[in-house]
């Protein structure tokens, strides 16, 4: 197999990322969606998107601690409606739109951060479904 970049070398190309933002502790402010354009050349997998967003807009909350290597299970988010381990989700050239929400089945702390010690419903199979 040749050594070639997975994402397109065209740095102009972007991925549209919709993020669900919500702070349950701020009374009255309902959840809302925010859109970002993420340069394709900067992201090879979903984990890179989370890091990119966090640095572009530090008001977003994502977990800053993770293993990058498929073992901590700390990088889960809901990706286009389904639980996904973000470090194990490559973004190929066909991906143009992404929707990100906090991982289902756990209490939301803020934005994409959930409390992994606090399962909110029986659907903790969320992660098993993702095939891990």
């Amino acid at each position, binding site marked *: *197999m*040749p*050594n*070639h*970049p*997975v994402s397109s070398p065209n740095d102009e190309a972007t991925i549209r990322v919709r993020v669900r933002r919500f*702070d349950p*502790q*701020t009374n009255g402010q309902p959840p809302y969606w925010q859109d970002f354009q993420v340069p394709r050349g900067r*992201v*090879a*997998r979903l*984990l*890179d998107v989370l890091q990119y967003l*966090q*640095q572009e807009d*530090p*008001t*977003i*909350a*994502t*977990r*800053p*601690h*993770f*293993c*990058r*290597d*498929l*073992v*901590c*299970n*700390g990088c889960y988010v809901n990706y286009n409606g389904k639980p996904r381990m973000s470090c*194990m989700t*490559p973004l190929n050239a066909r991906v143009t739109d992404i929707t990100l929400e906090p991982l289902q089945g756990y209490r939301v*702390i*803020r*934005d994409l*951060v959930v*409390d*992994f*010690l606090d399962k909110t419903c029986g659907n903790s199979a969320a992660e098993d479904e993702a095939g891990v």
Partner: protein
Amino acid sequence: MLSTVAQVKTDVLIIGSGAAGARAAIEAAEFTAAVTLAAKGAPRRSGTTNLAGVHYAAALGHADEDTPWEHFHDTIVEARWLADQELARVMCLHGPKSVHDLERYGLHWYRTPDGTHYKQLPAPGHSFNRGVHYNGKTGKMVQDALIDEVKRHPNIHLLGDVFITQILVDDSGVVGAVGIHLERGELLAISTRSVVIATGGAGMVFKVTDMETGSTGDGIAMAFRAGADLIAPEMHQFFPTAFVWPETLRGVAVNSSQLWKLGLRLYNANDERFMERYYPEQKEHMPRDILSQCIFREITEGRGAEHGGVWLDTRWIEEFETLRRDRPRSYIWPEKLGVNVQRIEVAPTYHFTLGGIRINTEAETTIPGLYAAGEVVGATHGANRLAGNALTECLVFGEIAGRNAALRALSTTARPAPEAMVRAECQRLRGVLPETGTGRRPRAIYDDLRHAMYHNVGIVRDGRRLRAAVRRVAELREEVRSVQLTNTQHYNVEWIWALELDGMLELADLFATGAEMRTESRGAHYREDYPLLDNENWLKNILVRREGKRHVYWTEPVTLPYLSEVKMRYAEPSR
């Protein structure tokens, strides 16, 4: 900012829920009803323990003639005689018990086909097959088994997303701690007479590392601020082979103990098998420190490949296909990101913090009531750590620290965390997290620091660059006072970065200064301007402590109570 203070009372506070902290909690909970286990990340999902690849070193003596003494011998020799022999001895003697403890918590180790013995793998530097394992998932299985046991224990209060910032100490020793409840943005004043620091290593101080991204050395910095002795601040282990490309994998280790055994080969950009030049006989069969230095030299002397690495070639390995299928995470998954696993471009990555908090065999630091265990501790592995010894150290000293912390709590009078000290920490935090800063954002300074440390205090060092690093760190420390932060109270990620950066800057200065002091080369510490090992002057450890605002450095000769005839196993690379 941080306007409310919540009070927490506990007999024992354990900081960090990795292998060392979780084990300490389980042990403490056998003695006392009030154990608090706090982690700045999500318990089970944070820390470097999950990443531990394969080996858990313990001389079980099941299948061969191995004994803890043999294990001890290997550990000391590979440590280039700089390890604390008392600590290493305890680690090796208690290693087998810790394997059985983990089995009791639910980790079903791989066994021999007839099921009677644990299966033990060989690893470089170990004279016997010593690595108990759970295939490529050993660390994760250790972490899971421990957290499952923690959750079964009614005496342990598990707190995620709590960032501990300070240990409160008076003349009698530990009197409390302060932390931030990240979700609420609230200060926690913790009343306790016993604290175990188990916060792991400091890989993030360097730009390229395979450690978890929260490995920022917070606990080492906290112990230092509290006045505890640190030991071996100059010792940092690099793992020779990690991805350099694609960017998203840079620094992630290519798990290679197995590859070594099967006969991997390393080539530079000229297609030269360069290890033949350095070690015509052993070639790639050399310990981590020496391989890292040779690879680094190929790269800096202009023989590196496209992305600044050398080629790890697996095409020579007959069994590679079997290994590849056995370890999909290591060898099949990277293909999805474009890596060619037959020829992987690799370079060394920061792997393990050899220096750290000084403890004795009772896991006591130099402050009464303050204990430490795991990677946060220094000197157990001297100038080079053997594969598999890190997890063993965590479990062995976690148990000892947990027990002693509980016993101390039960034999001292509890009292509330002194208000004046809590207020002083609140004041300090206002400086670390300024409300009206207009300077750069914390992440930018954080990245600059990591860059400076990797290039100036990394694998190959010299006095000029070490001094440049100290100056750069001082500049960044100045700059960080006016850091600009987003102002949310609730799970503010920039607060986390700023808090981590505060400790990293403290440590970076100690790491560089310690490295400048050691005017020789030994194990992981290689000085281009002092390339030779110097047993006459440097069978010594460097120590540092804070007294008021001053940093006091001194050296102490290594004591050799059990193995005293200093003999080196390897010739140093012909420099």
